[in-house]
């Protein structure tokens, strides 16, 4: 009797998980590498984003059928991508937001992701950098973004989630 009750109870608890089962193995991670080039005083950024996720979110922002990284790629693809990245990757030096210079993009070796390259001019004597990186967090609750930042001999990692997606690093 109690066994039957428990079984029903536990099955009822499992139900939402069962329904969500279609998401099995979907992976929601993006990686961003930032490196300071002291000579040109700029931050060189390489960021990797899954193509299918990126298309989904861009189409939510009104950019349908971009066909990113294919022969049929829309002319406006880079414009939309650039605008999205400007919102989702923000780096400030001593409180001042740095502006993006979109360098280009290329598909990853396995063709499931895209690498985007961005350069940001930074004042040479900066004392702190604030990094915000929340790409795709507007698409998935469980999106995780890894940021690796190398500057002035420091090599650090940050793991961002929807609850925590910006951090300030002191360089003085």
């Amino acid at each position: 009797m109690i066994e039957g009750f428990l079984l029903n109870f536990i099955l009822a608890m499992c139900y939402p998980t069962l329904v969500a089962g279609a998401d099995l193995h979907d992976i929601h991670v993006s990686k961003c590498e930032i490196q300071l080039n002291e000579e040109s005083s700029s931050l060189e950024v390489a960021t990797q984003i899954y193509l299918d996720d990126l298309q989904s979110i861009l189409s939510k922002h009104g950019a349908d059928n971009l066909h990113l990284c294919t022969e049929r790629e829309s002319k406006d693809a880079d414009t939309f991508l650039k605008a999205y990245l400007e919102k989702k990757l923000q780096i400030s030096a001593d409180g001042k937001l740095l502006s993006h210079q979109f360098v280009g993009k290329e598909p990853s070796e396995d063709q499931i992701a895209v690498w985007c390259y961005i350069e940001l001019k930074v004042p040479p004597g900066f004392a702190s950098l604030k990094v915000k990186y929340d790409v795709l967090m507007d698409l998935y609750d469980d999106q995780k973004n890894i940021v690796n930042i190398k500057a002035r001999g420091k090599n650090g990692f940050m793991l961002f989630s929807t609850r925590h997606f910006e951090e300030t690093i002191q360089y003085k």
Partner: protein
Amino acid sequence: MNSEFYTYFQLGLQHIADLNAYDHILFIVALCAIYRPEDWKKVLILVTAFTIGHSLTLAMAALDLIRFRQELIEFLIPVTILFTAALNLLPGAEKSRQHMPLWKYLLPLVFGFIHGMGFSNYFKSLLGKEESVVKPLFAFNLGIEAGQIGIVVALMILSFLVMGLARIKQPVWTRLVSGIAAVMALFLMWETKFW
């Protein structure tokens, strides 16, 4: 800012705890359902064998030494869960749980191979452009192991509470938990069938 090691450790830990990837949790539950807190040493070895198994295939896939059909792997993962749960349900399984022939340890190792292949696309995407694979891989797997041990401890506490409060005996509890795991595995097999 953290170290690379800590970041990937955390990622492994969170990946295990993630309910969207509950097939992993389910396997651990099925693997441990028949054991009692006093069997903790056996459980630790079983879980570690599983971790070693999936660390190996994950590493090989991340280094691009092996490739496989992802849809086949996604189907095989619930098969390993069903098989493990079914073993708990065999007549006499409860009585012979203290008897540990080698195959009982080899099974999670081999099943670990399959689960590791399920992780590999995930992991490949985490690697940067030029960094070494070894350190993040090691940290990620260690995080997964820690997460799995956490699941075992949680399961043990839960079974202790349920058995104490609802006065259910261990054999009944084992069958109940294994039965649920088996049903969920069947459901996953249905969802991931690739033919």
